[in-house]
């Protein structure tokens, strides 16, 4: 396991967000964190990335304690794409992606062919080669999100953490980004991401980790984790779980409090 944490507790003032949590991220897999708002998903990502120091517990990356690594060593081992990445000046896509090479440069080291190759590969993997000279702001939402992912890819870290990478994207862009993550997994990256859409999580995750009140409520394959009792416990939501007719993964059908159910076909899994 490239990345794991043990007995992590973290709090904002008096409010405890993570409570004695231990988690291992499996190599070359997509792990999805799910849970209700405020359950500690983003906090956990920030602790794993070394952006937040936990009150107790340790994070271990590639056999090293995270706290012992320098900023550049951390950036070489692990990449984090926050929920709302911001760019404060005008940049082309290739200029943005080139920033991903920062951890690989010393104080006076110049741009090398290896750097250029990493940028070109990141652009190719995200399908942005033809847009490399375009301003980031001129791209569509999905293309912009791909550009941010290309930046993370140019960083060339084995572990990639993404905080709600498909938030605010329309349906086709959501699928485009998640398909890209599958390709990255196949290319050998270990991916941990936060998703709110439980059905997309079910389709794309190798492992699902359900968080509740700063602790792991359940983890395992989508089939092991997603059932109506988990949805009720974690999201406080009544639901039926059926099998996705296309991908045969668990699919959650939420039950409204105000709309009467018009047809109920008995095909629920549990």
């Amino acid at each position, binding site marked *: 396991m490239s990345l794991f944490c043990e007995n992590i507790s973290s709090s904002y003032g008096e409010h405890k967000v993570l409570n004695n949590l231990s988690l291992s991220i499996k190599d070359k897999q997509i792990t999805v964190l799910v849970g209700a708002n405020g359950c500690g998903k983003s906090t956990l990502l*920030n602790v794993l*990335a070394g*952006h937040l120091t936990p009150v107790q517990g340790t994070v271990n990356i590639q056999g090293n304690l995270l706290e012992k690594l*320098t*900023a*550049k060593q*951390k*950036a*070489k081992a692990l*990449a*984090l*794409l*926050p929920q*709302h*990445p*911001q*760019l*404060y*000046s*005008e*940049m*082309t896509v290739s*200029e943005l992606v080139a*920033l*991903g090479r*920062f*951890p690989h*440069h010393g*104080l*006076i080291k110049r741009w090398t062919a290896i750097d250029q190759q990493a940028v070109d590969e990141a652009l190719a993997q995200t399908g942005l080669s033809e847009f490399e*000279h375009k301003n980031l702001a001129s791209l569509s939402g999905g293309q912009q999100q791909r550009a941010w992912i290309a930046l993370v890819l140019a*960083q060339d870290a084995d572990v990639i953490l993404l905080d709600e990478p498909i938030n605010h994207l329309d349906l086709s862009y959501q699928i485009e980004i998640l398909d890209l993550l599958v390709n990255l997994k196949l290319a050998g990256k270990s991916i941990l991401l936060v998703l709110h859409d439980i059905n997309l999580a079910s389709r794309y995750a190798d492992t699902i980790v359900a968080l509740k009140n700063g602790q792991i409520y359940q983890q395992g394959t989508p089939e092991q984790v997603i059932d109506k009792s988990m949805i009720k416990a974690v999201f406080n939501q009544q639901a039926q779980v059926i099998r996705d007719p296309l991908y045969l993964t668990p699919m959650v059908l939420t039950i409204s409090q105000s709309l009467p159910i018009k047809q109920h076909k008995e095909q629920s899994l549990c």
Partner: protein
Amino acid sequence: MSRSLKSTITLLLLCALLAVFIPAYLSLGEQSYGWQQTWLALFNQAGSTENLMIHTLRAPRLLLAIIAGSALALAGFLLQNLTRVSLASPSLLGAVDGAAVGVLVFLTLFTAADNQVLVSIVWLPLAAFIGAISSFMVVYWLTLRTNPSISRFILVGITISGLLKAITVLLMIVGPIYLASQAQLWLTGYINQTNWQEIQILAPIYLLLLLLSFLTAPWLALNQLDNSLAKALGLPQFSPYFIMILAAALTAVAVSFAGALGFVGLLVPHISKRLIRAGLFKQMLACCLLGAILLLLADFIGRTVFFPYEVPAGVITALLGVPLFIYLFSTARSQA
């Protein structure tokens, strides 16, 4: 034509412009000389009058204009990129006024009754630096300790500048008459009283700061991303403080002997970003070249157009700077 090629051509044009300005500045003025005479006088090889005018008076003045103009422009560039506030400048964030207080405190403490300065002026840039960095720190700290925002940052900067201006006036009133007249000249940005000794003090510090500033270009580039992402890419935690200290030191270098020059630190970074669209490194280079050119031009106008009077370079930079700044703002709005 790619943005990179366009930027390189613009940089070469700026270099050519500076290369033309330098001999023109040295040879033309209230007394004008031919190129050959100027060249010989530069190395003290011409007649005594030419040597005095060019080697003793104009050459150090030229170098001070280049150093102060480029240092102040670079300080503004660093601050605008660090704070991501396009209005940030050494003046607006209190550094120039802080440096002024540093210089005046230095002169007040170390001037004897007979108007002799008791310690070497080698220490004057240090006094300006302490003043500049202290005001930066106060502005930064007061902004960050509460809800940081662009408007708060500027508001705090203006407030601290106001306080420092009041302290400056107070020091001029309670200080000796000699100090008041010196300070008044200093505050307008007057570079005609410089000499080789001042250049020998400033030049090595300036070159070191220039080198360090260019080394921070990758940090500044990462700083264009939000803090979380910049941190994830390995931006060192101390980098904002290092850049702030550099900006304060550059401001101190610029203003310690050249005085409180207005607008260079605000205006020049904007122009360089307009001219150079590709890469922070090239923008920094353009910033240095443009800062030097602007101050050289301002000083040249100040000493020739109004002859036999000399108008301080700071007044000319403000006279040139204000309409140019208004023009930039109006075109930015129409482009938007």
